[in-house]
């Protein structure tokens, strides 16, 4: 009888243990849509490379919860309309264990309803204030724009400007008729009011503009002390060129130009960037503060060269990696994929990532803005190698990373 009981107990234990053992052998599937074609594919592909480097690093360490990590992803074509069906397929057909977002506001926002409906923890990559409307408590976003991105984005520009002697009194605000510039300009207006700057020019332009010199001349006619620009890559190039061609005389120029963070625009504009003040998320001058990034960037740059995407990788890739690190650390601490527990943990914990310590605010954005404001100088020629080494950028903000003061006026930097 004892023998029969012992055999029955062993069989029972084996049956109970079997699913756990089988699960441990199954990969942990993470699903997402990513822009691999369409206007934002350059960034989408760069983000994918970074995420794949993370996956390989994690799998080398034995995976997460003892399971190898596997990605299932689809091209969202930079088209918001494709996003809901991609996530429905990932969850219902592919049966992924976790989902993360693709790159950018336009593809994050359409995924939100499905995340909320299924109560999923949703790590997202470079969405601008997406949660302001949804107010979803399991949403997290890795771009370091702070709890109020509109304010956090241009904080450094205006703080650096007000640190000049004498202080500026007037400001011109200009940007493209598009979502990001509208948000950045809204924040810039708030800052101008906060620091008591008189707004002498506040206009937007169509993103398809070919020649920006009439806009810069109109700005020059108002004689602003500083000029804040919020633009996407083609218009960033156009505005910087026009400012040089027109000989814009102002003390500070730039702030919210998207594009100079990438090698393509850095090398295209070359010396024209000298004097421009603009945001960055990482610069080689800060390598000592972010020691883990060096190894990552080496791996990234090798792959990026082969795949024809941004060869520097300072802007988005480190944050794509960090997004996955947050998820990895949260799962490790929680010990399961329970979505509620994961979200609760991410809310309360601080994460140690390649981009530094990350803590999230109640709305899922970074608890504190860390949009660096920098000024380019000493750029000669159009070679890309000069941008891989320190020496071409002065960090103006935040103060913990500051390496110097603003060199004003803007046009004197061109000489």
């Amino acid at each position, binding site marked *: 009888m004892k023998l029969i009981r012992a055999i029955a107990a062993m069989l029972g234990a084996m049956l109970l243990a079997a699913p756990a053992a089988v699960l441990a052998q199954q990969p942990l599937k993470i699903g997402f849509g990513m822009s691999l074609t369409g206007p934002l*594919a350059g960034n989408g592909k760069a983000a994918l490379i970074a995420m794949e480097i993370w996956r390989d690093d994690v799998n080398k360490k034995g995976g997460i919860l003892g399971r190898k990590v596997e990605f299932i992803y689809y091209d969202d074509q930079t088209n918001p309309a494709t996003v809901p069906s991609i996530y429905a397929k990932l969850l219902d057909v592919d049966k992924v264990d976790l989902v993360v977002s693709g790159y950018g506001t336009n593809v994050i926002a359409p995924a939100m309803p499905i995340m909320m409906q299924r109560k999923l923890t949703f790590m997202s990559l470079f969405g601008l204030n997406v949660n302001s409307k949804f107010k979803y408590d399991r949403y997290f976003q890795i771009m370091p724009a702070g709890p109020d991105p509109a304010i956090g984005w241009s904080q450094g520009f205006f703080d650096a400007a007000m640190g000049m002697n004498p202080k500026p009194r007037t400001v011109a605000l200009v940007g493209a008729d598009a979502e990001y510039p509208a948000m950045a300009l809204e924040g810039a207006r708030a800052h101008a009011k906060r620091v008591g700057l008189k707004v002498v020019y506040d206009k937007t332009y169509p993103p398809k503009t070919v*020649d920006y010199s009439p806009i810069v001349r109109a700005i020059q006619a108002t004689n602003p002390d500083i000029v804040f620009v919020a633009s996407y890559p083609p218009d960033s190039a156009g505005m910087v060129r026009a400012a040089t061609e027109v000989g814009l005389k102002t003390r500070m120029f730039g702030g919210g130009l998207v594009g100079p963070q990438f090698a393509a625009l850095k090398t295209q504009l070359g010396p*024209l960037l000298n004097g421009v003040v603009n945001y960055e998320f990482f610069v080689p001058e800060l390598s000592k503060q972010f020691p883990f990034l060096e190894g990552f960037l080496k791996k990234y740059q090798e792959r990026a060269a082969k795949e024809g995407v941004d060869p520097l990788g300072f802007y988005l890739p480190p944050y794509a990696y960090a997004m996955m690190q947050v998820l990895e650390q949260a799962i490790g601490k929680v010990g399961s994929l329970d979505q509620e527990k994961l979200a609760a943990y991410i809310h309360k914990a601080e994460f140690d990532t390649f981009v530094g310590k990350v803590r999230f605010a109640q709305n899922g954005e970074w608890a504190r803005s860390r949009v660096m404001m920098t000024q380019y100088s000493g750029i000669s020629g*159009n070679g890309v190698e000069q941008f891989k080494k320190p020496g071409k950028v002065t960090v103006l903000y935040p103060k913990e990373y500051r390496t110097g003061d603003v060199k004003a006026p803007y046009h004197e930097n061109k000489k």
Partner: protein
Amino acid sequence: MEFSAALLLNAIIAGLLLGGFYAAVSVGISISFGMLDVVNIAHPGFIILGSYIAYIVNTHFGVDPIAVSLLLSPLFFLLGMALYRVYYLCFEKRGQESLRGLAFFFGILFITEVALILIFGVDYRTVKTAYADTTLRLGVVDFPLRLVVPFLVSMAMVVGIQLFLTHTFFGRAVLAVAQDQLALRLMGVNPVRIKELAFALSIATAGVAGAFLIVIQPVEPSIGREYIGLVFAVCVLGGMGSIWGTLLGAFVLGLAESFTSTFFGPSWAPAVSFGLLLFALAFRPAGLFGR
């Protein structure tokens, strides 16, 4: 903002320089759509193709992109001939050119775009030229060579095409195709052959305009779509099939954009440009130089 003579003069020059570029991107459509009745919606795709070819040669051999485009324009001409031949055999000959032909050119546009994405990726590309960063100053007026050089070559191209069309047998045949194909056939000229060559000429101009584009601004494969509305607007405003009309329409839109950007706010520029188009068409439905 204070109004000044310097601002006004610069707005005029900027508008004319911009108009010169618009004329280059639109003159091909004026030939294919205005004269041949071929709705080549893929025209901007060939402009971008021209940009990328100029980019490759400029990057590897350091040759000026506009010189490259002029040297390689025979290749674009041959490409245009081949494309028209396919279009003619598959659609025009069967009388299916209206909707299916339009879909064909849409397809060509997307295939071009995707091919460029697959080959070059989606990063913005640009070229290096000796003059791109130079601005000449005459008194208070600026002349950025980045716009002046494309303007001058564009003027030479547009005037050259107009002289070619009006002073050669082939050119007159092209103008005749636009008016009466049957009469042309009765005079012993094959209208299909004439259309093939004229369409090829329009594609050759797209290649050159592509070089202008990449000199003026960075390009990526899907940027061509942004020019679809513009090229047809210039063509319609100027008058279908009129090269001088295309030139005038391009200057009108260029000046409207420049003046609006300078004095009223750049976000109004498209509304003013297309408002002018509607206004002009209300009084001259055939366009400024249309018959």
